[in-house]
């Protein structure tokens, strides 16, 4: 499909699929500013960057050098750019009380509107996040002038309970920021991109919310990331063409608060969640 024109009541959200380099903040910041310029030209009101977009993903103990506080002066160009459009950016966040989070900052109007700290830190296979980051304390939608967004950082989205809880907490749409490594198999697209396509679609239709998915592409330390950034509405209809796997790309997709509200009124699936079953499971585990 081709991107359809933005209609009345819709705002364009841009997905900035970039290739970052661990330890090269200036290079990475440069990619952000270039994408922000393109997003502005495309009329976007919110730009979503991938996970750890400012630092790169395979930092390991490099987080000790590269973690930034939310008010670090090196973030000034992004705060400045957020006067024109909202920005969701990923970084290793230096916590005031110690520890470093794998975090997302929502910036708008030159100010910090909200922070999401990744809940699920994969520490298996090739992943070692639990070694370098502390997990986030909870899930709350982040709010800016465009709406209330549930922000999910990569592995957060692989736990479908995250989107259920965010839906119940009033999220109108999900912004998924991923640094999804991939392997190659017989398919014409990387295996990781295929899995994300299913996962993003499943999240949208089970939580009955649009999902805007921004993934990394490119290589870091010999690890390939799978791109294929994409957006889908609450019924599983694509809101934009899927980005290519291997190249940087800016995808723009329309978000309509009114359409989203109508869909979740028609299909109140997340509100039917049997939380009593969760309680039973918790009680059984703690018995």
């Amino acid at each position, binding site marked *: 499909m081709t991107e359809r024109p933005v209609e009345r009541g819709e705002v364009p959200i841009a997905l900035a699929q970039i290739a970052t380099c661990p*330890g*090269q903040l200036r290079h990475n910041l440069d990619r952000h500013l270039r994408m922000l310029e393109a997003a502005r030209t495309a009329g976007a009101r919110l730009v979503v960057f991938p996970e750890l977009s400012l630092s790169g993903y395979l930092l390991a103990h490099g987080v000790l050098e590269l973690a930034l506080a939310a008010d670090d002066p090196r973030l000034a160009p992004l705060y400045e750019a957020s006067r024109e459009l909202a920005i969701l950016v990923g970084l290793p966040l230096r916590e005031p009380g110690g520890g470093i989070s794998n975090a997302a900052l929502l910036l708008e109007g030159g100010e910090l509107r909200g922070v999401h700290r990744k809940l699920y830190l994969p520490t298996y296979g090739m992943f070692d996040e639990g070694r370098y980051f502390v997990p986030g304390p909870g899930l709350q939608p982040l709010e800016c002038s465009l709406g209330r967004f549930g922000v999910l950082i990569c592995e957060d989205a692989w736990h479908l309970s995250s989107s259920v809880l965010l839906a119940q907490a009033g999220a109108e749409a999900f912004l998924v920021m991923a640094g999804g490594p991939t392997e190659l198999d017989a*398919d*014409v697209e990387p295996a990781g991109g295929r899995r994300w396509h299913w996962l993003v679609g499943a999240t949208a239709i089970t939580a009955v919310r649009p999902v805007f998915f921004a993934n990394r592409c490119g*290589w870091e330390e010999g690890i*390939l990331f799978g791109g294929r950034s994409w957006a889908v509405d609450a019924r599983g209809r694509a809101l934009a063409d899927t980005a290519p796997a*291997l190249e940087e790309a800016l995808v723009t997709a329309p978000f309509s608060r009114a359409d989203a509200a109508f869909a979740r009124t028609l299909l109140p699936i997340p509100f039917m969640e049997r939380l009593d079953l969760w309680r039973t499971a918790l009680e059984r585990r703690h018995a």
Partner: protein
Amino acid sequence: MRELPPVHIPLLAEALTRFLAEELRAAGLRRWVVGLSGGIDSAVAAALAVRAVGAEPVEALALPGPTSSPESLEHARLVADGLGIRLDIVDLGEAGRAFASTLDIREDRLRFGNLLARMRMTTLFDRARRDGALVLGTSNKSEILLGYSTLFGDAAASVQVLGDVWKTHIFELARFLGTPEVVVSKPPTADLWPGQTDAGELGFDYPTADPVLHWHHEGGMTRDDLVAAGFPESLVEGVLHAYRRNRFKWRPTVIARVSSSCINVDRILPRNPR
């Protein structure tokens, strides 16, 4: 019998091409140096480098030793000409003989083979230093897992672009990249002495070994699982023996940790900070 799962060759080629471009960018360098043996692996690695950065920044070296086959040099030239890259010939024959004599290697073919592999590595890194280049490794996954490589010789390189690619797929990549057919179809050889072939030394060829390696290394199948799946017992024993015996080559070295800041243990850091 279980087969090696296929891989999408054009996507693989495209991804590896981009890897080679990004590695140079991240390192702040502009050139690749590659040793062309006249064999398929170095031909494929060089072709990917040319796709990544163009022909001019790719320097090929042919590094014949005292007993290298003249055919290898012809094939290296064929590959270089096909890719439009410059080929320098650095004849290691005399130096190899002299060094072997100094070390009193005599007729020990294995020691001599290792020596020559390390002299080639020395030459490639020297050239890389001179020209501000990275050394492009040409080892593939099959030979790394089977240990059919020389530690700090062909196993040493700035990056191993083919190190996660099965030899079976290298043949497909080579045809996709237009590698001369004579290079693709000749039996793989380290060319360290006349008549040497990988299969002759290993006891099996790569297309036969790759499915066994895959289903053990990635698929988690044990020796008994593999035999039950129909692989010949002698093949499974041979492959798994080489797989276990050569595992020390996976990591070039290990540092004895006596502090809480041991390099690559307590401090794993990005290679190219700026």
